[in-house]
């Protein structure tokens, strides 16, 4: 198994609270962010993720709690004195300066000689794939190029932590996917802790070592991507990350480490403790990902099978998504099937058999 224990912390958040007047923007945020980690703050708009990022940068004062950066309390330390640099959502490229002047802006007060500064700017531009762009006017750059200049400008100061505020949201889909891989590569190359704010769950899953999912100013779950996807801590996290089916379930009792549940439309199953993040009692529901249900085609068999009727078919080319009305269950479940040679696509109204696996279930109370 992969070692998921976090590296030594570079940032420690201790009960961070933020009020805007009566509005409670951050409610007791505590977390440790590791040295060299790619950490994401994920959540819907208004969940406080940007506020938290700006509090770490020093642009927002916190009402209560402590932010430790490399062991130092940041209380009262202004942004220009913190070992953090930020990539802004708008990139904030200085429009009246050239690309090189933008990238070298933070070196103005350094003790480097003019020659050394020039070399550093050249290297920083090289690193983000903009070698030779130094003399261009900043406002003549494309969105992707601006993004790279912003990265080079922030990284040239070798901060302990790089803060990225929705850096990819302004790019088109193709560019965004390219930058996701590139940011990840860059982060490994420089070994600096990156903290990314995003509302895009896919982006967070692709890029992060660990993700903090935030709702209403609180961290709902903090976990590596795989754990977050496979074992969401609450129903809301499960709904926010990817697609999840929910079926009513009744807890029958515990047998040693196992919890026995009766799931509507599927049947009885035994779940391990880690599949019950909220405990197990009485009326509950289980969560199941669409890809953990499998449609059975002519003659195929499985250990556990449930029957239902196809209610809706959505064809994506590589995948087909089915809405299946399970016999004896309220509502439909979504099932995704890869379209393989020889596998037919069912039609609305067809009867279907579904194979299911209790290991893919999560119980929510």
């Amino acid at each position, binding site marked *: 198994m992969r070692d998921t224990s976090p590296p030594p912390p570079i940032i420690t958040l201790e009960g961070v609270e933020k009020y805007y007047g009566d509005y409670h923007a951050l409610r007791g945020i505590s977390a440790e962010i590791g040295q060299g980690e790619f950490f994401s703050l994920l959540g819907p708009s208004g969940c406080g993720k940007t506020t938290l990022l700006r509090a770490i*940068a020093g*642009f927002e004062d916190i009402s209560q709690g402590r932010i430790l950066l490399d062991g130092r309390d940041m209380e009262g330390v*202004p*942004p*220009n004195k913190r070992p*953090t*640099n*930020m990539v*802004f*959502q*708008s*990139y*904030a490229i*200085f*429009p*009246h300066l050239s690309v090189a002047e933008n990238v070298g*802006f*933070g070196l*103005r*007060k350094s003790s480097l000689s003019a020659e050394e500064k020039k070399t550093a700017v050249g290297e920083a531009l090289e690193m983000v794939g903009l070698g030779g762009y130094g003399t261009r*006017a*900043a*406002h*003549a750059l494309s969105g992707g190029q601006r993004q790279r200049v912003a990265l080079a*400008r*922030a990284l040239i*100061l070798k901060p302990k932590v790089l803060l990225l505020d929705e850096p990819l949201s302004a790019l088109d889909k193709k560019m965004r996917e390219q930058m996701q891989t590139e940011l990840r590569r860059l982060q490994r190359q420089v070994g600096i802790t990156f903290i990314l704010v995003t509302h895009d769950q896919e982006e967070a899953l692709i890029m992060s070592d660990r993700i903090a999912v935030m709702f209403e100013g609180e961290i709902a779950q903090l976990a590596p991507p795989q754990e977050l996807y496979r074992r969401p801590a609450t129903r809301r996290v499960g709904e926010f990350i990817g697609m999840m089916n929910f079926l009513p379930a009744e807890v029958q009792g515990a047998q040693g480490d196992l919890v026995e549940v009766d799931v509507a439309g599927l049947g009885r199953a035994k779940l391990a403790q880690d599949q019950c993040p909220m405990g197990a009692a009485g009326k509950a529901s289980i969560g199941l990902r669409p890809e953990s249900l499998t449609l059975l085609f002519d003659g195929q068999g499985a250990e556990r099978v449930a029957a239902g009727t196809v209610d809706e078919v959505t064809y994506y080319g590589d995948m087909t998504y089915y809405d299946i009305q399970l016999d004896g269950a309220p509502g439909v479940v979504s099932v995704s099937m890869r379209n393989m040679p020889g596998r037919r696509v069912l039609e609305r109204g067809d009867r279907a058999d579904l194979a299911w696996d209790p290991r893919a279930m999560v119980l929510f109370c």
Partner: protein
Amino acid sequence: MRGGGLKTYAVIYLIFLYAPIVLLPLFAFNDGTIIAFPLQGFTTHWFAELVRTEALIEATVNSLFIAVVTAILATCFGLFAARAGTRHRFPAKAGIMGFIMLPLVLPEIIVAVSLLVAMLQVGLSPSVWTVIAGHVLICTPFAIAILNGSFANMDNSLEEAAIDLGETQLSTFRLITLPLVMPGIIASLLICFTISLDEFIIAFFLSGNEPTLPVYLWGQLRFPGRLPVIMALGTILVALSILLLITAEYFRRRGLRRAGLKDTGGFL
């Protein structure tokens, strides 16, 4: 032809607007003391006489001094107000901004009379400085309106980015804010200068025995023989005003180009 009526209207409107101004240079170069057609012939005599009139030179110096000081002060105040208005939230902001902009619509005669009363109450005697005070009052709203646009065009994150990169509030203002709003500052200086230069009512009430150019001009109207000289002076003023506006617009557009922004409309 479609829109023919509207086109005619537009042409008549422009004639109405500019025909009287065209008359100024016409009579300024006319060799005759009577302002009437037919023209008598070409002369630069009136311009020469203009230069010889000492009171006129004095009034011009007064006006230029007042206009320069007014432009600088009003633009500074406008800069502060516009930055506060676009960057910060504070209690009763809408009300405060409204009151600052009010002189824009206040009848100038009211401003002039109340300023005169207030001035006499505190024992100030009329001088160029009291005129400057009045002119700053009416010019500041224009400066704010112009600079508001400059600040609104500027991304908030730019200042934060500079601070994030190690600059102080002050050096950020110098390195980032000032260069980016400079076109607005120049435009504001020129507009305020122009407004102050040909403002009459406030200057008339507050200038005492240090008349400005418009006040002097008005005094000269009593002597029909001086009319052609006034026409000459008017010609120079109109030329100067147009030149200033063009310069202001040039700087505004250059600033937009530099910052890579879209033109959202200006003065010209």
